[in-house]
């Protein structure tokens, strides 16, 4: 058993989901190596070096990996795989991992397994289907298991206690098929949705985008991230990267506060693993109350300012 975890970076730093993927790799058992590939890697390598459970870091620092294009990263991973014969290749089930690993799997001619929530044995995995309305256990007979990992289902690996070796990756030329042009990331001082301890989400009940200011204000007071239901995104209140749900982000914070959200299946799939759920909705019949620990039947335009006052 040996696993290659493809590390993910954002602005040159390691993304938190990489640490969840390391935990999944440790659960499989055997040696865990990490690939850090990008135009600049030193910061992520420094971070990974002390992560518990990682025995080796492979670094591929090259301008051709700018933007982490799958057309360029895939041949690199294939080269590393051919030299090391890992039994498993893992990455976080983020936009990055979901984009890259299926391409790697197809090139290896193996069936990949997406977005696992548990590991039963090195060849048997658990994942959700139908937006979380059913749980599937699958067994693969592939020589190499190519798997993406749901971040919220595995604890983050400890960032201390490890001491891994660092090697350079073989030189593999980037692909001319694709080029990264630019990114437009939502600027926010609030914690990232999938990593926040508290998440406050607004739904169609918010009525418009300006009303989300109420939630931002409350979130800043509570050091919370702000999310939204698909209905709020579809209505144009907020950008899609705030969407919590099966088609958006999966979150599992300590505290999730759903504001003006009815609780469509697709939204529940993205937040029902939260430790404590609060629902604020004026409709007592809203399905969100069926999954909430604390339900408040109240007009949100009254309740949110009150909460804001009470938390002063």
């Amino acid at each position, binding site marked *: 058993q040996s696993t290659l975890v493809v590390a993910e970076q954002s602005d040159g730093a390691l993304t938190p989901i990489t640490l969840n993927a390391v935990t999944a790799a440790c659960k499989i058992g055997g040696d865990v190596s990490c690939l850090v590939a990008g135009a600049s890697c030193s910061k992520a390598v420094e971070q990974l070096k002390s992560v518990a459970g990682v025995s080796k870091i492979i670094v591929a620092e090259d301008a051709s990996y700018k933007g982490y294009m799958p057309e360029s990263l895939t041949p690199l991973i294939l080269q590393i795989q051919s030299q090391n014969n890992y039994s498993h290749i893992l990455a976080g089930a983020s936009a990055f991992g979901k984009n890259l690993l299926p391409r790697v799997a197809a090139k290896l001619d193996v069936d990949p397994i997406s977005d696992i929530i548990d590991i039963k044995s090195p060849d048997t995995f658990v994942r959700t289907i139908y937006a979380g309305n059913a749980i599937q256990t699958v067994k693969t007979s592939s020589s190499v298991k190519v798997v993406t990992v749901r971040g919220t289902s595995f604890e983050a690996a400890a960032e201390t206690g490890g001491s891994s070796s660092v090697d350079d990756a073989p030189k593999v030329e980037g692909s001319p098929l694709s080029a990264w042009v630019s990114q437009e990331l939502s600027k926010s001082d609030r914690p990232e949705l999938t990593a926040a301890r508290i998440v406050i989400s607004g739904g169609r009940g918010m009525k418009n985008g300006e009303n989300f200011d109420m939630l931002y204000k409350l979130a800043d007071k509570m050091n919370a991230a702000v999310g939204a239901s698909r209905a709020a995104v579809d209505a144009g209140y907020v950008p899609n990267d705030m969407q919590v749900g099966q088609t958006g982000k999966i979150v599992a914070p300590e*505290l999730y506060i759903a504001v003006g959200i009815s609780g469509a299946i697709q939204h529940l799939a993205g937040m029902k693993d939260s430790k404590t759920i609060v629902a604020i909705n004026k409709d007592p019949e809203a399905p969100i109350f069926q999954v909430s620990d604390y339900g408040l039947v109240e007009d949100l335009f009254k309740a949110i300012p009150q909460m804001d006052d009470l938390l002063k």
Partner: protein
Amino acid sequence: TMARVLVGVKRVIDYAVKIRVKPDKSGVVTEGVKHSMNPFDEIAVEEAIRLKEKKFATEVIAVTCGPTQSQETLRTALAMGADRGIHVEIPADDYVKTGPLQISKIFAKLAEQEKANLIILGKQAIDGDNNQTAQMTAAVLDWAQGTFASELKLEGEKLTVVREVDGGLETIDLKMPAVVSADLRLNEPRYATLPNIMKAKKKKVAKLTAKDLGVDLASSIEILEVADPPQRLAGIKVENTEELVGKLKEAGLV
């Protein structure tokens, strides 16, 4: 160059249907349940048709893989405006064992046969939630991939794709030919009107098998069990905001 577009459509349980797991845990109940086109595929079809309407594409070919009933979904794509259809018939027994890798090999073969240079697929099907087929089709063909697309712009040999990524949006340039996967905000799909549904009945649908294309349908993945998700116990209703904040403070959450 103009694009020749292949667009994939999958018949799935309608998004509004409440899913029921079979008592023997072999899968979910599909019999007597309303099915529709996978919502992300509707967006893919719409985008393909718009490319043709804007004279960026010469032809839009809709493809479906699956048992006989999949033809209904193909007809919907034709009624929306696809020019013709291809049904790769996979008997129901084989279809449950077929995975995204096998489907991507079918798409790749068809792209070669039809001399397509652009494939648009939904980013995931709402049954298996795999999110793999577009990426793997691109890999099999050695083409560029533009996944989770919220905007497309075709200029000669260059396809610019705006992608939905975790922190916001990303713009990439792809060299044609390419595979694109459609995300929610790419467009708002049109409804098939009755006259167009009637017209679609006359459009050509070719029927093939995986064997005709030389694709082996066996996946290495075996489904051991499909179960209900753990149920969350309903909590309590609080009387007012004071009580709510009090409870949260008690629990040490705020």
